């Protein structure tokens, strides 16, 4: 483990989660090396979002361990996990609707710049926070919407803001939960370009339904079916894997929007 810790961004060891008597995640073991772009795919109800919630501390685990860059983060609350460099987005847009676009990003920046719970700084005077937030606004192409209340943005803009908040802290492990869900073709292309740009030099774990996005973006793919990873491999080999074809790709022709 100690040698692997230097090269692994994320290690999931026999993760299990049950809601009541119903097992949702049934023993997921997965290693994501540093700087890999890793996609998790699977049919509706496979437990992809639940897996994200378990890793990011939203739900407590039933059993298993989660390690982030070698450190055990099992059972930590979300904010402690976030401070250790893992940042995630949500499938259902999860922003600060009454704050401006700029302030949404700035909220994501403050902790990582060390301002913590400070009441002895005035935010408008924090040059580093402003510069970082403005840089992110440029990256997500929302600079022209800077002072708009975030709740008033269009759907695609809110999705871009969602990614912006997620990367604002400069976390080196980024988890995106269906970043392109509900987007048009051209919006999806923009989003993929954005994700590619912001995950440069970082580790990316992404849940995605759009197969063209997955095969375009991912270095490796894990296929989750009924709470178990049935295969983890390169896109080409996943495509050729008969078990995967049977369990998942055979049904992928029909457009899906799962809310698992």
């Amino acid at each position, binding site marked *: 483990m100690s040698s692997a810790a230097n090269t692994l961004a994320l290690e999931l060891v026999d993760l299990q989660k049950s809601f009541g008597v119903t097992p949702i995640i049934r023993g997921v073991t997965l290693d994501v090396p540093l700087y890999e772009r890793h996609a998790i795919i699977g049919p509706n109800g496979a437990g992809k979002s639940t897996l994200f919630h378990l890793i990011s501390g939203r739900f407590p685990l039933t059993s298993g361990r989660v390690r982030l860059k070698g450190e055990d983060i099992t059972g930590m609350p*979300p904010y402690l996990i*976030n*401070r250790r460099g893992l940042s995630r987005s949500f499938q259902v847009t*999860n922003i600060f609707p009454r704050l401006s676009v700029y302030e949404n990003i700035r*909220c994501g920046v*403050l902790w990582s710049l060390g301002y913590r*719970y400070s009441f*002895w700084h005035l*935010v408008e005077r924090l040059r580093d926070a402003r510069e970082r937030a403005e840089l992110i606004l440029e990256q997500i192409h929302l600079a022209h919407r800077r002072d708009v209340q975030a709740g008033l943005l269009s759907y695609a803009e809110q999705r871009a803001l969602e990614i912006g908040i997620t990367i*604002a802290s400069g976390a080196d492990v980024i988890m995106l939960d269906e970043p392109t869900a509900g987007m048009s073709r051209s919006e999806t292309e923009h989003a993929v370009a954005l994700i590619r740009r912001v995950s440069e030099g970082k580790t990316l774990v992404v849940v995605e339904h759009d197969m063209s996005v997955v095969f375009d973006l991912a270095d490796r793919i894990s296929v989750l079916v009924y709470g178990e990873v049935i295969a983890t491999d390169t896109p080409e080999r996943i495509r050729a894997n008969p078990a995967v074809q049977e369990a998942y790709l055979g049904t992928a022709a029909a457009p899906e929007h799962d809310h698992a």
Partner: protein
Amino acid sequence: MSLIGRYAPWIGAAVALIALPHVFSSGASLTMMSLMGFAIIFALSYNMLLGQTGMLSFGHAVYYGLGGFITAHALNVIGAGKLPVPLPLLPLVGGLAGLSFAILFGWVSTKRAGTVFAMISLGVGELVAACSLILRGFFGGEGGISTNRTATLQLFGYNFGPQIQVYYLIAAWCLVCAAAMYAFTRTPIGRMCNAVRDNPERAEYVGYSTQMVRYIAFCVSGLFAGVAGGLAAIHYEIVTASVVGAAPSGFVLLMTYIGGVAYFIGPIIGAVLMTALQISLSDYTGAWQLYVGLMFIVVVMYAPGGLAGLLLMHRPLARAGTLTRLLPSYGLAAVPALMVFAGAVLLIETSYHLLVQASEGPNIHALWISYDATSPAAWAGIVALLAIGFVAFRRTWPIVSNEWNEATLETRRRLGQ
């Protein structure tokens, strides 16, 4: 914004606070302005929770009241021991007391938000109110704790006996506290309070413990509530157990909400208005609390932004110069609105007279008219006033709303949005 532009409102407020006693110099108005001063601090501290952090507290008077008691006790200790402490520092004692109790009680109550927090705040409020009847040594029982503000170290010959000196003491603290609370909203923790209010879950995913953010907001809010309580103790020179009870906790909620929780200035407007109403209205009618309650209901239902919200929604129109076109329609709707208002006042006053003051005979004097409260004609008049006013208001309101929409469109065009 230029430096002068940024500080202009504060300089203006300071000038106004200095000038006010020269305009309203009677003893009654000095007293009222003193009450407004600590009501403003109290309401602003409450809005740190409600408006800024999204925490509904039903027990904020605990920190105000305990701040008051500790200040009174401190004053008595200072007076008895002839300790060299000047009076202007005493509100700080109240603030530290409020802060200490907030640190203690907040640790439990801020673990959760929403309904759980509201219920715990209610519970803590009841707990302290119950203690106030049991711990007679500290709370002084029925008589409360009396004190003497003049028995402190005198600086520059001010003994704070005259009300005008107390007014300036309160005004200075009010300005300093308001500025400090405004500054707090511009700090990283202040901004994260807003973020926690908007979306606590997401706040946890940008590295912030929502519990810690709420706890800090609660403690700072308790500090300022304690300062307000300390000033109240200095003003009244007596603190009774009723200040930690449910009534003042409810009243600060009313003040803040009616003023407008979404704006920093809202609680200030609310505190000034409600203090004025509390004092002047109670001279005119015994049913004044009913009016306050009705006003609260009307604001909650029709103006959730409070009075500050109503005022500030006109700001872009004033800037674009489209406000004047609204005035005729406002004037038109004001007539039936006043009719409904007058009808409602007469209805309440007449009923109150018959139900509560029946022993004084049937003759009543309300809204500058004298009449017989039992006469059918008077009742018919009241009902007619209400009915006609209501129907006419329903007719004129669409005109207002139409004019409003057109003025808003015109404003957008002129401001180029």
